[in-house]
């Protein structure tokens, strides 16, 4: 691992993967069993403690003090590596400490006791101390893990500013991958004591990379602000299945909400006909559903239609979402009017907006009215859907017997 100047390095990895240990080896708090840490070509273990402290400062996750110290005294401790023991702090040291407090916006806390401060304020004071230490390298061990969003952003902005203003190199362990992506210039991924990947956020924070390190499936897109990877955790709680199959006819994102909801409620789902790459298609894929799919913009082929019908027939109930209808997906409605579909509970998520969603000059509207008038159709809304489906499937089953 090679570290250049003025960069914000982020180390990420699961708990116990050796991130903190690596930081402590870098700062010479721990001696490596093998290998070496060098500054400007000199081994850190050959450098005196005080000299190291003039090159590297450290910010821990949180600092607790059982004793009553003034904020200004805590900041002044950052000057320790420069102080002549017999002379004590000079005017210059006080000046630098004042500046550090100004920079970190802690001047107003100056005479307060460190003990009384909130977590975010404490972290700012510790940053002021590190600033007063006037080092080229700042090491941070989960500096924001204990803080709320406002303070996380505040502290990280401050560190980033120090990187830019003072050509400071920051090496931070961050737990939040999205924060690491947003702030890190360079990401180091660790697992089981080894560096598995390193590089820019785009090179490292990929779905495959994260799967490798955290053994977790994620969805990675690009953050709309800042042009950095953005990682979505996929929420897939292990819900007991109810054994009820539901086929969702959707498209264009109209089914995403319903699919997520029904999935988390324990239904087995299928969907169709969906264009490949459609939002509903992605969601269906992520939930490992069976899908009747079609290439975009070509209309529904006979093959896809048959597949859709097959899935719908196999289901205990069908849900029709508030999808937009055009020529290409009109066949989704036609399916519902087939004779074979009679007696299959059909739930229509009615929201009075059908006319606005019709791009077929009224053809779809007419089909829709015919579907609604069939006696297996049930108008409902998404909140009541779960109960309605269970009820309908139960009575349906009884009437069959």
């Amino acid at each position: 691992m090679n570290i250049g100047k003025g960069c914000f390095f982020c180390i990420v990895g699961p708990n116990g993967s050796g991130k903190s240990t690596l930081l402590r080896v870098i700062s010479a708090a721990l001696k490596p069993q093998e290998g070496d840490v060098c500054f400007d070509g000199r081994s850190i273990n050959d450098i005196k403690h005080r000299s190291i402290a003039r090159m590297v400062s450290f910010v821990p996750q949180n600092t607790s003090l059982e004793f009553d110290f003034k904020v200004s005294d805590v900041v002044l401790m950052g000057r320790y590596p420069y102080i002549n023991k017999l002379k004590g702090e000079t005017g210059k040291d006080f000046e630098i400490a004042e500046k550090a407090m100004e920079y970190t916006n802690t001047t107003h806390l100056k005479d307060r006791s460190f003990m009384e401060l909130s977590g975010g304020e404490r972290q700012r004071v510790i940053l002021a101390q590190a600033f007063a230490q006037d080092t080229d390298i700042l090491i941070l061990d989960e500096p924001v893990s204990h803080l709320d969003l406002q303070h996380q952003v505040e502290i990280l902005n401050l560190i980033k500013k120090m990187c830019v203003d003072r050509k400071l190199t920051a090496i931070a362990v961050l737990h939040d991958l999205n924060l690491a992506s947003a702030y890190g210039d360079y990401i180091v991924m660790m697992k089981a004591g080894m560096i598995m990947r390193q590089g820019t956020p785009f090179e490292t924070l990929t779905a495959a990379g994260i799967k490798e390190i955290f053994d977790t499936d994620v969805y990675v897109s690009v953050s709309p602000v800042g042009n950095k990877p953005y990682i979505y955790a996929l929420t897939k709680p292990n819900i007991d299945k109810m054994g009820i199959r539901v086929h969702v006819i959707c498209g264009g994102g109209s089914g995403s909400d319903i699919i997520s909801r029904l999935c988390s409620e324990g239904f087995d789902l299928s969907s169709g006909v969906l264009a490949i790459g459609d939002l509903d298609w992605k969601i269906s894929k992520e939930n490992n559903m069976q899908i009747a799919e079609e290439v975009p913009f070509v209309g529904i082929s006979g093959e896809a239609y048959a597949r859709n019908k097959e899935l719908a027939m196999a289901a205990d109930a069908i849900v029709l979402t508030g999808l937009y209808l055009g020529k290409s997906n009109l066949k989704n409605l036609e399916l519902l009017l087939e004779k074979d579909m009679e007696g299959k509970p059909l739930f229509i998520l009615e929201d009075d907006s059908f006319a606005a969603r019709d791009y077929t000059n009224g053809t779809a509207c007419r089909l829709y009215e015919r579907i609604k008038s069939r006696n297996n159709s049930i108008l409902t809304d998404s909140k009541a859907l779960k109960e309605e489906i269970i009820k309908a499937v139960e009575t349906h089953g009884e009437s069959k017997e």
Partner: protein
Amino acid sequence: MGKVKNRNWLVLVFLIASLVLSLIFAASTGAVKISTTEIIEILTKGADTVNASILMDIRLPRVLLAAVLGAGLAAVGGVMQAIFKNPLVDSYTLGMSSGAALGAVISIITGLNARIFGMETTGIFAFMGAVLTLFFVYSLAYTRNRMSINSLLLAGVAVSYFLASVISFLMMLNHDKIEHIVFWTMGSLSMATWNELFISAVIIIPSLAVLMYYTRELNILMMGEDAAHHLGINTFALKNVLLITCALVVGSVVSTGGTIAFLGLVAPHIIRLIIGSDNKSVIPYSALLGSILLVLADTAGRMLIQPAEIPVGVMTSIMGGPFFIFLLRSQKAGRQG
């Protein structure tokens, strides 16, 4: 900042004045009253009266010994609280005092209390007892590269109890020396001589200077060992120097005065309540307050049930015990609030 400095100076002047007054008060009170003017006269001109020999041979060494031991114990308490970042630590709660007492008792019953270079071997045994106990307690609490302060205190108290019962057992087996041993376990200054004062002062005063030299580092150590390391302190070496110095002081105190409880706990806390936690002031001020308190406690012990004497260790426990409980409770309240 200037304001606080001024207040610190006031406290310092007050402490020094109180120390002088309590020394004079302690020297003048006793079975025979000696007036202040007479004390000054004896000290400046010298005299050959009975009062002069009471003052010079009995009272003065005792009073000064109390002052030296009190200063040592209080400074050690303040330093150990800073090292372990916990307000409940002192030489007593970490078992050092009991260890020193056991060392002293062993030297008494084995008859090894010879003199080497004017130093009683009892003192050396007490020092060894203090150091060994400290490192034993320390190693008990130090598991997997981490030290939990709770296990340190628990280990300290447990080892303390254990050593106390070993001492009791040894007392049971050695009826003939019981009086001598009780002296160690209860803490008493009644055997004070110029010689003892001299030996204690030679050990304790330079030790205090060492402790005070490191007060800036102590402040930083209170931020945590990691933080101290990253500010350029060799924490391992620093802690070793400080703890060995502390053990030296405790060993020396116990070998001359026996176990004197709670003083190391109480004095630094009173000082912190007044001037905050800056060790650059806390340690020297605690030493002064420790002197005052031990001189007064010893005087009270001499005076209260005349002609008998209450051992000074009993006196400090009587006044320190309730304070310890108060401290525990207020710490709890602070955590909840």
